[in-house]
């Protein structure tokens, strides 16, 4: 039997309530880049002021009855940065260090990302300060359902559509969809994306980000007048994104000369045998590239891979891999950012000076959010496409987005990262302008 509330231990774990760090928050950083772009675009001051504030910030205290009978209160957030271009879209993360400024910053970044690829969404993000390693499945389910109920006033298939992010997954998305459906009294699966396939999820999602990376890479090379059959590619990170990008680029005719994972990398200037490599990885106890050996292959480190003289480098692993201390030695002429934030600001400046073309993460790894959009479209129409159709739609959207960013960057004499952000802000500003201010 449940204890009376007064006898239960109410914990707002002090470790979650950390003081703000002395360094600038993510939100400060996002605002600084928006301000830079506003100057370059000669943005209307009124619209600039609108974009400097999230439309809505909802903070909730989520009470959860833990398995041991105690009550714990978790702090949760949902921030909608802009709905000018359509319903807000963005993930929900579970992590002890989530805070409001981080969520605001991530929400704005989703606004720009959706605008860059031209999908009709605004940007949002959410999070709950919790430690999922300490919580049972039942506790996670109860927390997710209560959090959903508490942010439900601002969620909806035409208002705000969450998705998985750090430490959340399709199961958690299924709980959100179920909670919304129960509260609404009718099926509302289209309120989230990233759902399991048998619950309104989309075909093609698993490969979407890697496929998107491959599509923008091939489009960039085409624009640069390069023949794919003559292109060499190095891929750092052989997870879902890196391996799919490598495989699809190889199918397009590129030569994959180097790949790496946590165990290090392999290099063959004449091209790697991806099938043999995958068999080696699958048969190795650690399921890493340690399992692949061939007389033609040279073992290299992750740092070595970045310096290989390949035409294209795809960092598809962790953040901050290309830094001020190694940017001078990057061997590739083109970099396509499969991972989020693999290049530091300092490195970016060095690469620009060296004339290295960088396709920024906001565009290069947007294949995932594009297929999330396609999942939502299918849910709304209650009709589901084949994987071939999903891939065809993804191809069209990524090619168009790449061309838009490339042309805009060329027209403004800006590197692609700046060009992508300028284009995104311009599109959102245009939408705000067109809609006008109500009332």
């Amino acid at each position, binding site marked *: 039997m449940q204890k009376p509330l007064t006898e239960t231990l109410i914990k707002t774990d002090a470790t979650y309530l950390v003081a703000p760090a002395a360094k600038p928050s993510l939100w400060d950083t996002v605002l600084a880049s928006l301000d830079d772009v506003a100057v370059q675009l000669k943005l209307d001051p009124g619209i600039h002021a609108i974009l400097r504030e999230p439309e809505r910030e909802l903070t909730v205290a989520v009470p959860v009855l833990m398995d041991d009978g105690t009550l714990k209160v978790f702090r949760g957030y949902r921030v909608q940065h802009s709905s000018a271009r359509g319903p807000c879209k963005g993930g929900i993360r579970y*992590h002890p260090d989530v805070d409001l400024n981080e969520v605001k910053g991530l929400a704005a970044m989703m606004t720009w990302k959706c605008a860059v690829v031209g999908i009709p969404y605004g940007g949002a993000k959410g999070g709950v300060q919790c430690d999922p*390693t300490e919580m049972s499945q039942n506790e996670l389910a109860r927390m997710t359902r209560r959090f959903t109920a508490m942010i439900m006033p601002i969620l909806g298939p035409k208002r705000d559509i969450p998705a998985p992010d*750090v430490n959340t997954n399709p199961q958690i998305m299924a709980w959100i969809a179920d909670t919304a459906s129960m509260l609404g009294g009718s099926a509302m699966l289209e309120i989230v994306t990233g759902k399991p396939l048998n619950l309104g999820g989309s075909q093609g999602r*698993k490969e979407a980000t890697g496929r998107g990376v491959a599509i923008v890479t091939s489009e960039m090379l085409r624009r640069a007048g390069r023949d794919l059959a003559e292109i060499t590619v190095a891929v750092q990170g052989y997870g879902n994104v890196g391996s799919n990008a490598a495989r699809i680029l190889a199918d397009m005719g590129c030569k994959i000369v180097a790949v790496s994972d946590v165990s290090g990398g392999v290099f063959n200037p004449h091209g790697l045998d991806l099938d043999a490599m995958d068999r080696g990885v699958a048969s190795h106890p650690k*399921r890493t590239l340690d399992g692949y050996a061939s007389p033609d292959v040279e073992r290299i480190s992750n740092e070595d891979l970045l310096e290989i003289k390949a035409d294209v480098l795809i960092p598809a692993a*962790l*953040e901050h891999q290309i830094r001020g201390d190694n940017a001078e030695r990057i061997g590739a002429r083109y970099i396509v950012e499969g991972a989020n934030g693999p290049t530091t600001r300092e490195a970016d400046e060095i690469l620009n000076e060296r004339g290295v073309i960088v396709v920024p993460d906001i565009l290069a790894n947007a294949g995932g959010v594009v297929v999330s959009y396609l999942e939502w479209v299918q849910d709304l129409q209650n009709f589901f496409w084949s994987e071939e159709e999903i891939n065809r739609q993804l191809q069209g959207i990524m090619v168009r987005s790449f061309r838009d960013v490339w042309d805009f960057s060329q027209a403004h004499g800006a590197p692609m990262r700046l060009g992508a952000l300028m284009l995104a802000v311009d599109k959102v500003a245009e939408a705000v302008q067109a809609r006008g201010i109500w009332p």
Partner: protein
Amino acid sequence: MVSPHISTQAQASSIEFSLPDASTAAWNAIDGALEFCAANMKLKERDAALALLRCGGDEIRGYFEYGLARQLAEYLAALDTEVRAAYVYDTEATPEDLAFGQVAPTLVHVIILAQRKTSALNSLIVAVDRALTQRYADLMGKPGQAHLLDVQVVSEAEVNSRSGFGAMLTWLHHRPLMVWKR
């Protein structure tokens, strides 16, 4: 089963320490991780967790990783006072992609935060990793198919200077989760 132990006589203080060797530590760590799975997934016992782990599934694998990393950290911390905390992290390029599961089990990625990095700590990690591999392969009944550790040791100096894997503790998208601290 009686666990073998290494006994060390600390002569100065005349206190006897009894610490498990790597092989016993591996047994204990995997048992502890399975119990952690059972508790968090409301399974009746450790064996039910093992059966579920053999079948695969993201949920039990997640709990097994947390439990194993925690057990590993406790073992290392008992033997090495430099160890301060342990974190788990993932190497997928974007968090959204991680959510869509992996075809095959991959490594348990662990960051051990130590006051300073020493070769003694590295040797200890190698020994316990080897023992864990063997024990896990036996338990899963799949020799050569074991799911093992990727352990990165970072020093407090590296965290402060945000260099190497030390920088990762403050990253935005690949934010590790602390599973143990001293």
